[in-house]
């Protein structure tokens, strides 16, 4: 119980944990969809405080990790174009494309800038009217309203040297894809609170009904996560499969109406490839016809770039459990967390990265 004193209210945390322990009579596997929740669970050791049978399965909710390779390659091609200022959130710089990453391109002299908000990129465009400024628009439903508003503003203000490289992904189709996968072990979902802050909860009852899984809207802080897990266990134990909201202080059922209207105006639904998972139908957004002239893919004619994962990389087999990470010949050699070749080494929660961090003895044996 060494982690308990890190909780903002250890007494409340203890009480929630006691209730979870008291409610649990058999093993359950639940997935936290959001990478922010995964981070919080690991950081606070929540998984270690839970009853033994309760397994937290980490979901695909990390926008950086699931951005497909061809999108990274398009970003790299645009960033390397003379005259371009390429703007991105900082955590995209190390994500590998086919050969390089944005950081390498920047070191080689490209003008790659890290911004806090997409609006900063629009300001850079207005300050540099003779340059093309491109923003790398990745993320889930939480981030999409910011990017939508930025394109809307660019159009309204007539900023023509700004464009968006769009790679948005949506949570509900991913939940469906996870449930439809063969050997799916997930029995319940902790839904991502801030995605629901924007989108509301109306899409989830149909999913809960179709797949007969409880879906509990959950926040990000340790106490929020414990409360989400508690509500999930109570449902699992009683055999119900409903949508409940364990994060009502930031999630009204209707979400954020002005943001949803903006999203409907600026984007339209499209198929998207998720790195490490593959194509999920209708799982993403692209710019709608009115805003298509702000699409960096068209402006820089990079839409046709298609790339394959490194021929060395066997992430697909790792993800399906066919091989263990250290059985990949690139593991720990061409491929490390600092220079990842594949999706499963990109994110610190990926299987290859976890093996690299904790199972280096295997590496020595294999290498010997």
């Amino acid at each position, binding site marked *: 119980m060494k982690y308990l004193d*890190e909780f*903002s209210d250890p007494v409340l945390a203890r009480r929630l944990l006691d209730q979870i322990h008291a409610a649990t009579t058999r093993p359950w596997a639940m997935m936290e969809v*959001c*990478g*922010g929740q995964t*981070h919080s669970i690991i*950081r606070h050791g929540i998984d270690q405080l839970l009853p033994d049978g309760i397994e937290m399965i980490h979901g695909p909710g*990390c*926008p*950086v990790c699931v951005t497909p390779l061809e999108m990274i390659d398009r970003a790299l091609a645009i960033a390397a174009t003379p005259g371009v200022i390429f703007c991105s*959130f*900082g*955590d995209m710089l190390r994500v590998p494309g086919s050969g390089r990453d944005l950081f390498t391109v920047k070191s080689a002299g490209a003008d790659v800038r890290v911004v*806090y*908000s*997409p*609006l*900063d990129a629009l300001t850079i465009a207005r300050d540099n009217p003779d340059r093309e400024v491109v923003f790398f628009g990745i*993320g889930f439903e*939480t*981030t999409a*309203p*910011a990017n939508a*508003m930025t394109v809307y*503003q660019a159009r*309204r*203000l007539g900023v023509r040297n700004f464009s968006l490289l769009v790679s948005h992904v949506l949570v509900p189709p991913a939940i469906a894809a996870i449930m439809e996968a063969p050997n799916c072990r997930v029995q319940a979902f902790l839904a991502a609170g*801030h995605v629901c*802050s*924007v989108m509301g909860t109306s899409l989830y009852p149909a999913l809960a009904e179709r797949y007969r899984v409880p879906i509990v809207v959950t926040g*990000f*802080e*340790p106490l929020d996560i414990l409360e989400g897990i508690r509500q999930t266990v109570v449902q699992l134990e009683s055999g119900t499969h409903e949508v409940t909201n364990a994060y009502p*202080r*930031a*999630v*009204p059922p209707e979400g*954020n109406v*002005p*943001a949803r209207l*903006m999203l409907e105006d600026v984007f339209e639904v499209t198929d998207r490839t998720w790195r490490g998972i593959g194509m999920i139908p209708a799982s993403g957004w692209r710019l709608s016809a009115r805003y298509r002239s702000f699409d960096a893919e068209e402006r820089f004619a990079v839409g046709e770039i298609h790339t394959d994962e490194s021929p060395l990389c066997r992430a697909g087999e790792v993800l399906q459990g066919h091989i263990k990470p250290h059985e990949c010949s690139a593991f720990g050699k061409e491929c490390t967390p600092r220079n990842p070749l594949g999706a499963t080494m990109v994110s610190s929660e990926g299987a290859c990265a976890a093996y690299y961090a904790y199972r280096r003895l295997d590496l020595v044996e294999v290498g010997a």
Partner: protein
Amino acid sequence: MCLAVPGQVKSISERDGTLMADVDFGGVRKDVCLQYVPDAVVGEYVVVHVGFAIQRLDEDSAKQTLANFEQLGILEEEFGAK
């Protein structure tokens, strides 16, 4: 970039026809777009993600979240400055 952080609206202004706010995140000040929470008022707390307020929050939950983030060094990580 994943994190959404609560902060207090210190002042509201209009810039290029857009509602903007000066928001205080436990000492770190940022410009935040208020177009999605247009009825927020000075003194209120909002949840902010990549420079956009996406929901309002009551003061107690906001303060608790901020204190918790600060204790864990998350604020520094998110904004790259103290």
